[in-house]
């Protein structure tokens, strides 16, 4: 049994290279925190700043988890933001309609809307990908435009406002911890658990690795894909509610840069865009890293708009850097493995 001593009951995806990614991300997060704390000891490592960062990152984080799910199957979901905005628009309409008669009931109704619209949008994506057979990038490009189009038709392009009773979901806090961030953490934990500890998650990884072998192993690929896109839609709808609560308004063109940004977070977090590898922990860490970078930049550069632009450049540069580092470490590992082989 000597050979089996190594496989302790750790997470089944505990592949060394992935752990490398996670460790690397931890180091980046810690380094960023240290650098900015030293640069702005008065403003960066404060409770207020931590709170404000937590407020800002929740909805993007949930959207990134939605994209990560689709990426793990070897697909992608470009429609996340359109789904979020469509949900926010419909929820806001409901809230404004009942703001004088039954505001509390309307808040509950807003959640019900998210519960219906998100999975519905996701199911349509899933249908196009799993049953019609359109490549995910094209199918969700189409639905991204379509869902946004539906939102435009409903709102005629105008912003729709929420009601104060709804603000808690975006602006409230419990014991100083922002509610949106709590929601994000809970969602991340649930999704992480689902991916690493359930049969569905297991099948997602296998499908993402080799869809044909998955089919020939008796995995119901269509159902796995449907469930994935439906979950992705549900998460997007939740993000939509949070942004509605936070900004108190719903617009169809809100957060258009989120689509590409979330893909970037996933890749930084170690999700393989070709599918089959990557962990939710990585996505969370990548999100934290990017948020630290953005806020830190703001503080160091003092001008908030200029810092936004610098942040954009820094994100792009970070992504490219991570790609190159991963490439070099992969080649290095390959070389050392070959060396081992030739010696053995």
């Amino acid at each position, binding site marked *: 049994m000597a050979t089996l001593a190594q496989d302790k009951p750790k997470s089944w995806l505990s592949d060394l290279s992935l752990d490398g990614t996670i460790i690397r991300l931890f180091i980046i997060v810690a380094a960023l925190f240290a650098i900015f704390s030293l640069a702005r000891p008065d403003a960066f490592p404060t409770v207020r700043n931590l709170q404000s960062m937590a407020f800002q990152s929740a909805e993007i984080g949930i959207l990134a988890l939605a994209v990560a799910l689709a990426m793990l199957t070897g697909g992608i979901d*470009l429609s996340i933001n359109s789904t979020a905005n469509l949900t926010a628009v419909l929820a806001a309409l409901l809230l404004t309609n009942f703001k004088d008669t039954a505001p509390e009931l309307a808040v509950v109704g807003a959640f019900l809307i998210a519960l219906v619209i998100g999975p519905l949008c996701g199911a349509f994506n899933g249908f*196009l990908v799993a049953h*019609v*057979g*359109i*490549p995910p*990038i*094209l*199918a969700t*490009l*189409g*639905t*991204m*435009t*379509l*869902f*946004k*189009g*539906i939102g*435009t*038709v409903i709102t*005629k*392009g105008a912003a729709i406002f929420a009601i104060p009773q709804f603000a808690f979901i975006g602006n409230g806090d419990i014991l100083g911890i922002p509610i949106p961030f709590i929601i994000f953490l809970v969602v991340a934990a649930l999704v992480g658990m689902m991916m690493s500890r359930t049969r569905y998650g297991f099948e997602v990884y296998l499908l993402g690795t080799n869809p044909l072998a998955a089919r020939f192993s008796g995995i119901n690929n269509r159902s796995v894909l449907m469930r994935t896109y439906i979950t992705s839609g549900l998460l997007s709808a939740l993000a939509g509610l949070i942004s509605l609560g936070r900004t108190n308004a719903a617009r169809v063109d809100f957060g*258009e840069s989120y689509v*590409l940004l979330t*893909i*970037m977070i996933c*890749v930084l977090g170690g999700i393989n*865009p*070709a599918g089959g590898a990557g962990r939710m922990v990585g996505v969370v860490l990548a999100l934290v890293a990017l948020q630290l970078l953005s806020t830190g930049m703001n503080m160091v550069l003092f001008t908030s*708009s*200029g810092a936004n*632009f*610098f*942040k*954009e*450049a*820094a*994100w*792009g*540069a970070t*992504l*490219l850097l991570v*790609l*190159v580092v991963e*490439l070099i470490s992969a080649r290095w590992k390959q070389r050392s493995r070959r060396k081992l082989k030739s010696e053995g």
Partner: protein
Amino acid sequence: MPSIRNLLMRQEVIIGLTIVALSIFIGLVNPSFFSTANVFRILRATIIVGMFAMGVLIVLISGGIDVSFPAIAVFAMYVTVSLIRSGTLPDNLILSYILAALIGLGLGLFNAIFIAWLRLPTLIVTLGTLSLFRGVLLFFVGSQRIRIAEVSPSLTELSRANLLTVENPGGGVANLHLAFAFLIVLAVIVWLLLRYTMLGRSIYAIGGDREAAERVGFNIRRTQFFIYAFVGLLAGITGLTFSALSREADPFSIVGIELDVIAAVVLGGASITGGRGTVIGTLLGVLLITLMSSSLVLLGISSDWQRFVVGLLIIIGTTIPVLQARLRRRVAA
């Protein structure tokens, strides 16, 4: 003999027929659709998307994807106009275009280093450079909108130049912008490149089967360097043209158009997995999307429906090749 069925298997034919049918329909509902002014208006609206689409077409055929070209375009455009404003660059149209093209080429080569040399995935690399180029532009170069009329007489002149001027029977004139000629010339160049040069064939070969292309003896790295450099150059030229058409250099413009352009190219029959795509199909795809979104008002439909219709179009357009493939398999079996 190409049977009707074989013709219907070609996306170009289907899109072309759709355009004709749609035009007839819109024309019946609102005869002003066929007025010269309206036709020119639609053609003008195809210029920018069409020029970008030529670059995207080449990338898609090679099996890659590029989302950074709008950032390259806006970068080249804004830097060029800024330099004219500061007096560093003389206000000469040809010099401006050369500079914009060179900036585009440089940024395209930057992409190529990661893609051709390091062999990193194209979508992710260009996602990174999209963000990088735009961030650098806004932070280091500037974020203020510049009115072309205030800084560059030569670009202003271009913005007013016409390729065709037709007198309306009812009085007044209809103009077709000169830049439409750019699109046509570019389309011819890309068509010649893809069809009659070995470089063009190597692009198809790489998209069809990369390994086989290597075995045949194509230099894949060189071809990929060309592709991304060419797309960059094209983006630079298109960016400057955009500033002339819109009469301003807005550093926040253009970016955001990338997915729409890709949608148009795919609608025109190019395969997202590489190997397939034609210039004619791409032009038709661009025309169909433009036609759809710019003619709703003529049909008495609110322009709010524009996005919805385009989304529907993309979904239907991407379903067609899937169904065609199924049909082909059934015929073969």
